[in-house]
């Protein structure tokens, strides 16, 4: 593959990134998904669509999000200069709103009445409920009963925004069951509903479509870092669960051969099966939820139960484009465990006054490790994909004491 042709020629017409991606879905859904692909490809050529989306990015989301030179953190660790792309400053607090607005406009254009999706911790659900409210669409969010109890602030946000939060009550009652429940509801009425997938996963065209909507992050960041430092960064770092924020920022740098790209996976609480969600590091190719990708799987071929302290990274598969970028070597995939992520959660809060999402803490933690090995002239750009407000209760309850934070007094 010629890097020079990338990523405009990816995926191919059937949605493959090399051997990954595609469309592994029931025949009765294929026609509907083909309609979505056709509508998106038509919309992609339409200047007025992009004008509308960019108007919302600017006036509603608050784009462009700034790039911030973390001088305190950089000098404390004594290596490369660390810069953060501040996606945490977006409306709703993370990068998810970038693709949710795009999906909502697509649904409107296709004449759909309702957006539906699954959510784990509620971040994608809140962003989608927001986009639905703005565009006048109904919104059903499927969420595991266990997660509903754990994430009550986000559940309330979705309800206040007018969305229905529908509990998934079977199996382990978490994200995977929420996907099943949302899928079941979707196939019952694919005509009036659009399943707004929450990452660069699922059947074609979703990995492409979500990447395209997230690519604004990379385009802005590349121009901003050039303006601030007069050169391209030596490395770009982002966390990878499904991989939407990483594809967003990587997409603008893939052709810059001298820029190293690092995807950071969650190493959880250990390397045993079920203790992590480091899909690319430990998985092997498989097929899940309609696409082919690296997949953590049991010996018998079922997707594995996975774990990470960051619910947004807690997924046994990964985007097909990441799977491709792993095999061709363009992106280097590393991992950071729970402890390192929590340490960075407090470190970034106290050294820079930025409370990062636990997901983004993984990226920042790896960036610091990397910075220590680099010279002062090197620039490392990190996607700070979300803010950590949503994680405060959990982190304080479980790790507060260690860091001198007491919930009661």
């Amino acid at each position, binding site marked *: 593959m010629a890097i020079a042709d990338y990523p405009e020629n990816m995926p191919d017409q*059937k949605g493959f990134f090399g051997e990954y991606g*595609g*469309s*592994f*879905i*029931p*025949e*009765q*859904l*294929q*026609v*509907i998904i083909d309609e979505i692909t056709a509508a998106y490809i038509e919309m992609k050529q339409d200047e007025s669509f992009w004008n509308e989306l960019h108007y919302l990015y600017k006036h509603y989301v608050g784009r462009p999000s700034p790039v911030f030179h973390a001088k305190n953190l950089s000098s404390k660790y004594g290596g490369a200069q660390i810069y953060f792309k501040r996606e945490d400053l977006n409306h709703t607090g993370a990068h998810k709103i970038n693709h949710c607005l795009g999906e909502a406009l697509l649904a409107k254009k296709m004449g759909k009445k309702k957006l539906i999706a699954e959510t784990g911790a509620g971040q994608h659900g809140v962003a989608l409920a927001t986009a639905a409210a703005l565009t006048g669409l109904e919104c059903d969010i499927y969420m595991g009963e266990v997660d509903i109890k754990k994430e009550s602030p986000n559940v309330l946000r979705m309800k206040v925004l007018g969305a229905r939060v529908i509990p998934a009550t*079977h*199996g382990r009652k978490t994200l*995977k069951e929420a*996907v*099943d429940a949302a*899928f*079941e509801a979707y*196939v*019952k009425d*694919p*005509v009036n509903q659009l399943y707004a997938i929450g990452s660069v996963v699922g059947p074609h065209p979703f990995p492409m479509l979500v990447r395209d909507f997230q690519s604004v992050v990379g385009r802005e960041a590349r121009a901003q870092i050039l303006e601030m430092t007069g050169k391209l960064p030596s490395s770009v770092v982002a966390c990878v669960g499904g991989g939407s924020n990483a594809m967003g920022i990587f997409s603008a740098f893939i052709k810059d051969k001298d820029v190293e790209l690092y995807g950071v996976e969650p190493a959880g609480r250990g390397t045993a099966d079920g203790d992590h969600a480091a899909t690319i590091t430990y998985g092997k*190719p*498989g*097929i*899940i*939820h*309609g696409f*082919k990708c690296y*997949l953590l*799987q049991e010996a*018998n*071929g*079922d*997707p594995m139960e996975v774990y990470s302290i960051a619910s947004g990274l807690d997924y046994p598969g990964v985007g097909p484009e990441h799977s491709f970028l792993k095999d061709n070597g363009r992106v280097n995939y590393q991992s950071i465990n729970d402890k390192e992520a929590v340490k960075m959660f407090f470190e970034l809060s106290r050294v820079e006054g930025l409370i990062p999402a636990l997901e983004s803490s993984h990226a920042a933690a790896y960036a610091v490790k990397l910075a220590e090995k680099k010279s002062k002239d090197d620039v490392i750009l990190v996607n700070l994909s979300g803010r950590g407000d949503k994680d405060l209760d959990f982190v304080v309850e479980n790790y507060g004491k260690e860091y001198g934070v007491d919930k009661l007094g």
Partner: protein
Amino acid sequence: MKSYNGAYLVADYPDRERFISAALKSLEFFDFLEIGIPFSDPVSDGTVIAKAAYDVIESGVKFNDIMKSIDEIKSKIPADRKLYVMTYANHIYHRGIQNFGKIMNDHGISGMIIPDIPFIESRRFTDIFEQQGLEFIYFITPESKPEQIKQIAQSAKGFIYSVSMRGITGSSMNLKADIKTAVADAKTQTKVPVVLGFGIRDVESCKNALETADGFIIGTRMIELLNEDADNSSFNKFVEELKAKF
């Protein structure tokens, strides 16, 4: 023409003995049995089948256990009764397509029904399965294009699985005119039976199916019947009813 009908059961559900007993009972009436190998992310199945699959996985049943149950069923049924395995693509991909096909051959399985392999992705599987003499069952839907129906009709082996509506297993029967057209279209171009599945749950819907298609497949209802008691009596009664009516 005699109808050609199938039943679907989740392997080793509710347990090994009751599964084998239900399989043998159903093959007194049905021409073939679809045996579902549970997958943890069954995107084509509704709650009833998904829950049954989940229970089997949770109970610790392994792939090899299921193959042993299949051997026992195979040894006790007439040669004209066919067994199919229904499972998701990853189970096959995980073991290697060639190797999976060999296992199926070794256990006397006639072919595979893989709901997350649509026609456009089927070649990589069919190329190998056909060499091994296994049938890859194609689906047609109310939205299948005439050109695709033609291709499927001409290359189909075993039977053609027509999905009676948009939806997943366990949805209600709703025979739209467009599936009738698709089935009729396929029937004129193929040598194999065109069988209607999804939403068929009683004598009435079986009769409706037979007005259009060469046969029917009953799935979710079979699982519900197994859930009704602890000794398969509701299940057996239903099979007897079908035997009497058709």
